């Protein structure tokens, strides 16, 4: 509506509106209060409908977060233990147990398998404990190095230097019928593994001093 440019239609319309006989003020206000009440009622009804609708929408949105992380995890086979020479650390790829058919290559996850000796294994996640970048194993200097911010870990996964506040994430593993099995499913982050790594630097890595010294939960023991 443009007030500066009156048109014939709008003029006639306003005249027409004025032509309607005015009701007495009391009757109008009475009807207004009834209409106002009905309008408030309609607001209430729509609010209720909105609340009912919000429940499934919020449930849908929060779906991924409401799932227990343990439900993602399952045991998968990495291969016969003969594939892993003693005293070596090797990169092994596995297909994540939970994928969609359109995940493509992102469903293939690598991990570092270290066979200390015999049936003693360590399986490390590829993700640096600092910010999740892929760590690389350097066999000569016996270090895992991270390309992003230079986090370094010793052969047994314990923190060596740099910004990570703990050692590498380790997957649970077991050996069944000479096959190495690991428990995987979810990308390892500090949320699930806040501080599993012991504060001790195990230089030889083969003996598990940690079983005697229980790792303390909390941030303090994470410091390398």
């Amino acid at each position, binding site marked *: 509506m443009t007030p500066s440019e009156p048109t014939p239609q709008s003029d006639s319309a306003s005249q027409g509106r004025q032509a309607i006989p005015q009701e007495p003020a009391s009757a109008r206000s009475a009807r207004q209060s009834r209409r106002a009440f009905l309008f408030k009622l309609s607001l209430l009804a729509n609010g209720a409908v909105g609340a009912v609708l919000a429940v499934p929408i919020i449930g849908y949105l929060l779906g991924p977060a409401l799932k227990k992380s343990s439900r993602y995890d399952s045991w998968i086979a990495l291969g016969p233990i003969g594939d892993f020479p003693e005293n070596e650390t090797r990169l092994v790829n596995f297909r994540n147990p939970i994928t969609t058919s359109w995940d493509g290559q*992102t469903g293939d996850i690598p991990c570092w398998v270290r066979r200390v000796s015999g049936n003693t294994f360590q399986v490390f996640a590829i993700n640096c404990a600092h910010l999740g970048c892929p760590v690389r194993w350097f066999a000569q200097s016996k270090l895992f190095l991270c390309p992003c911010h230079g986090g370094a870990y010793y052969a047994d996964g314990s923190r060596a230097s740099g910004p990570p506040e703990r050692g590498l994430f380790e997957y649970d593993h077991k050996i069944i019928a000479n096959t190495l099995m690991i428990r995987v499913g979810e990308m390892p982050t500090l949320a699930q593994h806040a501080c599993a790594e012991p504060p001790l630097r195990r230089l030889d890595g083969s003996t598990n001093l940690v079983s005697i010294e229980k790792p303390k939960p909390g941030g303090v023991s994470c410091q390398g």
Partner: protein
Amino acid sequence: MSGMRKGGIAIYNWLERRLGLGQPARAAAVHEVPSSTSSWWYVFGSAATVILGLQVVTGILLALVYTPSASHAWSSLQFLDNNIQLGWFLRALHGWGSDFMIAIVVIHMAQVFLFGAYKFPRELTWIVGVFLLLLTLGMAFTGQVLRFDQDSYWGLGIGASILSRVPIIGGSLVDLMLGGPIIAGPTLTRFFALHVFIVPGILLVLVGLHLWMVLRLGINEWPMPGRIVSRATYAQEYSTLTKETGIPFVPDAAWKDAIFAAAIMLAVIACALFFGPFGPTGQPDPTIIQTAPKPDFAFLWIFAVLAYLPPNLETPVLFIAPIVIIGTMLLLPLVAGEGEKHWSRRPVAVLMIAIIAVTLGVLTRLGMYTPWSPIMDAWTSDPIPTAYLHDRTPLEREGAIVFQNKQCRDCHSIGGEGGLRGPALDSIATRMTEDQIIRQVLQGGGNMPAYGNSLSPSETTALVRFLTTLRGNDLAPAIDASRHMALSGKLPSTMPNGR
């Protein structure tokens, strides 16, 4: 000719009678602004809006081809680059448009801050502007994710790792962000929805609000030293100023906006033409670990901050700093809504801009060459300078081989080649004695891992012998003063020249 003109006017009138938009639009265009605002300093906001338009158009055009599926996104970008006529150019325009948009928005923000434009009555305009900056950065991050390559994949990993540090609900936030247990198909689709629907939707609404307030409250006048903003008198002063010096925005002031916007668009087009699209880098395949992930330009400074924070401060800083920074920006106009606008009377404001600019600049520069990252293949590719092998004993040369084999060069440079994580070792023997070098190598310390477990005694001896020959330009070697004292039996005061 005149018949066509008449026809055009008739069509316009027919539409205008029904829409009624032409009149208010014309009124808005020709509204009076203080003549001092017809300045080349006042062109950044409109330029940002124009680039936003470019981003919307190019974004929609890219969506004609792009496939938001984890298994196909990367190949659909290759298809866009190589098989679709001018697909590469559209990708380049969108990518460079994004970088220019962030730059212009940041410059716009610095300009309105220095001109005191956030003061009464334009507080809310500034606050909405802060959200516009955050949304612009949000568009940049989600856009980088849609370029589903290695950097994008590991960038998501970095994002998830940061979120996982949130106390208590960190794990749930990671699940929400990834849409599942790992970075995969559902992750990409939710970032697609964010980048294409959610963030731009909010962005466009807020841009509308921002512009509406600029029109409603009037553009900030050119500040003058001594002209104090006060809530009681400002409206009167502004209307007097506009009445006295007012010029119609279109065309008297707007031509500068239009010229600058055109120049910026030309710059975007030129960059797109000469430099081409960004990536995609390698495929988003986590099993390819030979990669050094890096975020896009706008986030390099954050990448640098994450490298330098001490481990035990990292989590608190990660969550407290953004709240403090964003909170300060939001509260600024509410706390300092009155007073001086001119920069010459606001030295703290000028100093802050200078410090922030230098800090962001330095951190971004560091993020470009990441001195904190080991160079993963330096030990295989960079040779030891022959000068460092001349006149060396066999043991010392053996040490040079140990130095190379044990991958010391991934972190230490020698002869200018190698990593920057540790100090350059060309003159290490002038700073450390043999004993100190042995201790440092075997036990580590500072930022260096301990190598006691990966070096045999003979390797250690050879390596340290080699390192003790590295004395830069034949400088004097570091010595242990106490040893000299012990051997000679003299007190330090009697020693000439400290030797």
